[in-house]
């Protein structure tokens, strides 16, 4: 049961990678990267309950933090501005 859910999440991640490879503008790739980060947080939480190990959820929290910071930096970059404005 839980294995099927993990396979569905991996399929969704591959759909994100398809959009990241095909996307016509750089904004599409940035959106796909943001969505992929949020998906991987859920994947880490599912790994925490299937393996019974505790540290996967810590990886998920730190992945959410780094994905948020990277998304804000990419948004400023797409706006054609530098980081200190």
């Amino acid at each position, binding site marked *: *049961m*839980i294995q099927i*859910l993990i396979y*569905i*999440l991996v*399929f*969704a*991640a591959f*759909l*994100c990678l*398809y*959009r990241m490879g095909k*996307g016509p*503008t750089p*904004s*599409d790739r*940035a*959106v*796909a990267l*943001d*969505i992929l980060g*949020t*998906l991987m*947080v*859920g994947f880490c*939480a*599912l790994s*925490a*309950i299937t393996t019974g190990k*505790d540290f996967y*959820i*810590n990886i*998920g*929290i730190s992945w*959410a*933090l780094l*994905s*948020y910071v990277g*998304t*804000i930096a*990419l*948004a*400023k*970059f*797409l*706006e*054609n501005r530098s980081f200190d404005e």
Partner: protein
Amino acid sequence: MFWDTLGYIVIAVGVSFDLLGTIGLVRLPDVYNRLQAATKCVTLGTAFLLIGVFIVTGFSATGIKAIICAVFVLITSPTGAHALARGSHRGGVKLWEGSVTDVYAEDNPE
């Protein structure tokens, strides 16, 4: 046993939200449409999934961290999506030709 079954049902709902959001990310025609579909579905799906992990594990270290992570995702993901949409619009990404209005360009003439 009851809480395990309820938690797995909530996790399955969250994973189906994730799958529908990424199908919208592939199928829709424009960066703004893709951003709208994918962000809303994937944010709610991941929040459901983390709440399901909390229901399965109970008040342990993993469950409390899952609740903290769900609150964090619910706050930061719409913020990041808004920043991406604003940056794309000000960076000059065109709308889809079937779009009927552009309120941001009407409100901010440059």
